[in-house]
């Protein structure tokens, strides 16, 4: 069963000073799966994301993606292996245009050399055209193509979130990691987002792992859920199971007074 998992994490540990942010974290994710990671504030969810994407180095444990270990690799190498992410607090290239935000994500497969660019050889113009065309395609999917020349910082909040997903998708990942994609969205926007997330998964043949506090979204789209509290997995299972899990309810609402 292990050999089919797209992402497999074993005994992951990370502590900051004396604080264990992630403790003995075990996790697996199959191709095409849509998995949620939930837990109270400070449970270590974003730390897990940062460990997977190489922002932090784990103290212990192994992360295997598509049968090759990625523990301790640089973020850009992990991205090249096919993991892309968005951020809890949006991290767009604010002063650049919407189009450039996506074109930067396409840079890792840039089809021409630097010398070609400096001498402005024909291959440069062909390559730029190709990059721009591909970027516009991603923008169209996310209904941002009409705003391609706007600066990213001038987009409304919901569109910034969408642009972040578009940018992540432009690295053509096999695993997309979304850190609170619905944060700050109203219920209507959240419902649209749910449709978008499902659509991406089906259309692009990839797995999605997301952190979210909005339970309607998590219960609505995730096929399997992990619950994290104090850096440890306290529950794992189908949305129905999680909803009725006693430990989960305790973690969120506190224990019943005996």
């Amino acid at each position: 069963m292990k050999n089919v998992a797209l992402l497999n994490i074993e005994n992951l540990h990370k502590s900051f000073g004396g604080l264990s942010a992630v403790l003995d974290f075990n996790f697996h994710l199959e191709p095409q799966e849509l998995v949620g990671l939930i837990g109270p504030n400070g449970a270590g969810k974003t730390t897990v994301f940062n460990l997977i994407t190489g922002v932090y180095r784990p103290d212990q444990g192994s992360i295997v993606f598509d049968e090759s270990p990625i523990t301790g690799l640089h973020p850009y190498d992990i991205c090249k292996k096919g993991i892309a992410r968005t951020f809890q607090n949006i991290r767009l290239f604010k002063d650049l245009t919407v189009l450039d935000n996506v074109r930067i994500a396409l840079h890792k497969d840039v089809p021409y050399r630097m010398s070609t660019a400096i001498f402005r050889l024909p291959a440069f113009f062909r390559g730029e055209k190709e990059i721009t065309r591909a970027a516009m395609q991603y923008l169209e999917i996310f209904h941002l193509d009409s705003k391609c020349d706007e600066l990213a910082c001038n987009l409304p909040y919901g569109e910034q979130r969408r642009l972040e997903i578009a940018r992540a998708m432009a690295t053509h990942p096999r695993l997309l990691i979304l850190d609170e994609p619905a944060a700050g969205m109203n219920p209507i926007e959240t419902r649209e987002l749910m449709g978008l997330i499902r659509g991406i998964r089906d259309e692009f043949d990839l797995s999605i792992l997301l952190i979210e506090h909005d339970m309607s979204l998590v219960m609505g789209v995730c096929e399997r859920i992990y619950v994290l509290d104090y850096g440890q997995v306290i529950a794992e299972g189908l949305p129905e199971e999680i909803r009725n899990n006693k430990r989960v309810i305790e973690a969120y609402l506190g224990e019943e007074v005996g």
Partner: protein
Amino acid sequence: MQKRNIKPVRFLAEVGILVAVFTVVQYLITTGLLNQYYQINLTSMCINIILAVSLNLINGFTGQLSLGHAGFMAVGAYVSAVLTMNMGMPFLVSCLAACLAAGLAGFLIGVPTLRLKGDYLAIATLGFGEIIRVVLQNIEYVGGPAGILGIPKLTTWPWLFGATLVTILVVVNLVNSSYGRAIVSVREDEIASELMGINTTRYKVLAFVVGALFAGLAGALYAHYFYVIKPETFNFLKSFDILVMVVLGGLGSTTGAVIAAIFITVLTAVLQSFPAVRMMLYALILIIVMIYRPQGLMGNRELGRKTLGRLWGEKRGPAEH
């Protein structure tokens, strides 16, 4: 569709303007209409443009605050002077060697220091710039503190024009490519950039090396015009001078760097006879610009084509940092 027809015409027009500028200046020099005084300032102007444009690649586009540009200029000046004077190399070879040596110095200094950020990087590069100067001061072979005297005057208008043009073209073409976007993404958000698959260290070092390389070229041109080079010429005040041009012009605008370099050169020349007033006025202008135009004369926009009409146009949204 209309654009496509305009393109070759515009290109030819641009080439025409360049050729015209070159020929007119060349004519003025050969007929003696442009006297020695103006020629010196013209040379300074071109050298300053090269320095400002190349530093802007590091400070403006990549967002890495470097204060060691004069150090790379020194490397170029000394290497080229030694090659022409002691080894009898032609000027072109000296210039290329100056670029290579300065680029190499940029690489050696960039790899360890570019792990640092902001103020720390500024101090480290400042330190390295000073190290280069002090090392030169202590090498007898290049004259120690007295420097090198009697360097042949090989820097002529065609050389200056060509070097300035090449510098601007390389920087502009680099910046306006996928590689340039990668460089700018480092400035915008280093973490996001890494997670989008960009090896940020590599692009920081790249910008640093290219910037240093052209500083070396400026050094070679300088050495072969002003007869004498001394380590003291390339102290941190020189680096600071270049930084002022870049900040004045607008971080991340090549045209801004060019305009600011011209402006500062002219200002320095005009106020030459009032050294005390000069420094005061210099400071005053900087303060005024920083109050009314904190993003620099050009912000991060370019002058030309599209933006010409909007030069002093509307503010650019909540982009203030």
